[in-house]
């Protein structure tokens, strides 16, 4: 409830917040619902190749005659899906890890934070690329064996590994908060009353952390979205005919030449992605400023 109240406080002070929120809702709505009303499907090819924006194709068409508006909205689905599920993975790992580390304290805490530091000094995104390309085959076989066919193995791997790279900051911040919280009277009281550690962590500490979790949630989503599109751009992302914003921009970039400019292929998916990232970063920043006691006046 406190978080909600705070949220409305921030909103009241800054109308840009409402604009960003509405924009994000519009993007999600268009990606999920609007995509069915474009008159095309994302994998429908035609002879109308590389047409500039027109009444029939609002965003123009690409090399294979795909309708770019449909592709861009489909890319939004994939990019948002990867970002949202990857964030859930990173959130679960980060919060659990940080809470255990901070609550246990002492030697356990020291060891757990060393591990975080070591992972910080690894080229994580680079390792993710290696992991995803090398595990692609085995996971495909595994998914087939389990009868799961609706998710491409690449997509599953990207979600898991990107989630696993972005939890470090969350873990550090949660740990710092728990270190302070666990010394407070209400925790001591629960301990004295004989509550188990697990109950204290879940019932008393976790509710006090929701504010900060929401803040870092809004900052993790754009980070994972950016990483995914970066990988898609480099050709290690979602496989065709699926598309994410990264692959769409990559297609456009490969067509840049001095003779003809296919600007619509770059501007529409790239622009929508940039605006989405901007809105998410703006929301996250504003919430952090509102919640951080050092900045809050």
């Amino acid at each position, binding site marked *: 409830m406190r978080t909600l109240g705070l949220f409305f406080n921030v909103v009241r002070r800054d109308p840009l917040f409402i604009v960003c929120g509405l924009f994000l809702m519009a993007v999600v709505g268009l990606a999920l619902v609007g995509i069915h009303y474009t008159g095309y499907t994302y994998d429908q090819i035609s002879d109308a190749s590389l047409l500039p924006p027109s009444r029939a194709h609002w965003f123009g068409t690409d090399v294979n005659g795909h309708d770019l508006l449909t592709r861009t909205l489909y890319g939004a689905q994939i990019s948002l899906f990867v970002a949202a599920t990857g964030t859930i993975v990173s959130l679960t790992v980060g919060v659990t890890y940080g809470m255990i580390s901070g609550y246990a304290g002492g030697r356990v805490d020291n060891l757990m934070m060393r591990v975080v530091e070591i992972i910080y000094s690894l080229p994580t995104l680079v390792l993710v690329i290696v992991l995803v390309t090398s595990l692609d085959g085995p996971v495909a076989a595994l998914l087939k064996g389990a009868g799961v066919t609706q998710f491409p193995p690449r997509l599953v791997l990207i979600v898991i590994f990107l989630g696993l790279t972005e939890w470090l900051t969350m873990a550090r911040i949660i740990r710092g908060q728990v270190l302070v919280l666990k010394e407070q009277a209400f925790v001591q009281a629960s301990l004295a009353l004989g509550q188990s550690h697990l109950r204290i962590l879940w019932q008393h500490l976790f509710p006090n952390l929701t504010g900060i979790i929401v803040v870092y949630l809004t900052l993790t989503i754009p980070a994972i979205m950016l990483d995914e599109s970066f990988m898609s751009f*480099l050709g*290690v992302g979602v496989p065709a005919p699926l598309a994410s914003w990264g692959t769409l921009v990559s297609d456009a970039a490969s067509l840049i030449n001095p003779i003809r400019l296919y600007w619509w292929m770059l501007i529409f998916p790239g622009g929508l992605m940039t605006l989405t990232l901007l809105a998410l970063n703006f929301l996250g920043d504003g919430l952090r400023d509102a919640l951080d006691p050092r900045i809050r006046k």
Partner: protein
Amino acid sequence: MTALILRRLLQAIPVLFIVVTLTFLLVRSAPGNPFSTEKKIPAEIMEELEKQYDLHGTMGHQYLQYMTKVAHGNLGISTQYRNRTVNEIIAQTLPVSMTLGSLAYFLALLFGVTCGGWAAIRHNQAGDRFLMLIALLGISIPSFVLAPVMVMIFAIKLNVLPVAGWGSPDQIILPAICLSIPFAATIARLTRGSLLEVLKLDFVRTARAKGLSEDAVLFRHALKVAILPVIGYSGPAAAGILTGSIVIETLFGIPGIGPFFVNSALNFDPFMTSGVVLVYSSFLILFNLLADLLYFVVDRRVKLE
């Protein structure tokens, strides 16, 4: 201080060991063929090739062979780029990436600190608001969107800079700018935030009370303290510039180390991939150490542990 450097360098050895082991074993256990991605190679030739590259026998045997070579400073021969050793490829491409990276980092620092400081003095005025919006935009535009847009504008429409390539001084300008923008934006935000905090502190008031000019207060006193978070950020930023350059180098056709990484992983080239990952990790660790040392040099109160 020497003890710290030594300890950190010693700590780096197990980290690098883990990274190389992980990479090599992963790439080798993947069901891809390092010698060809498309056509099937006859069994006898395959066997001969594997022998030639020390990729025959059990996984443990291959791994031991490779690690022995690495311990002697030999990173093996690339299976993708036949007849070229990994050492040779790295020696040729790394200086290119480093030239581009250091120029981008210099630009990021220059513009980041200047804009951040400028915004902090005009706290909450229109100029500050505007700059911070630009900075947020700079963080939000992915480099692979920014770079093609810049190429479309400056190289194709205005025709003032070359589209791609490497060698002449004008070819470095666009990639360096594209690479530096997200970092310049982050540094600007960091500088602004930290300078705003510092300007409220007592020593700044004392400096003003002494009758120092506003410039002297800002540059000689406040900025010296306010720059600390920027230094702390420079370690991770170096890492970001290294990975960010993969995209930029691919887009601008620059013969740096970046494209090799993605290609070698896609082609299941175990030696090239492990070699490049080793280089990346070493750089990351080195830059993090440098940032920590610089922190200590600037602020003597920081305890080195």
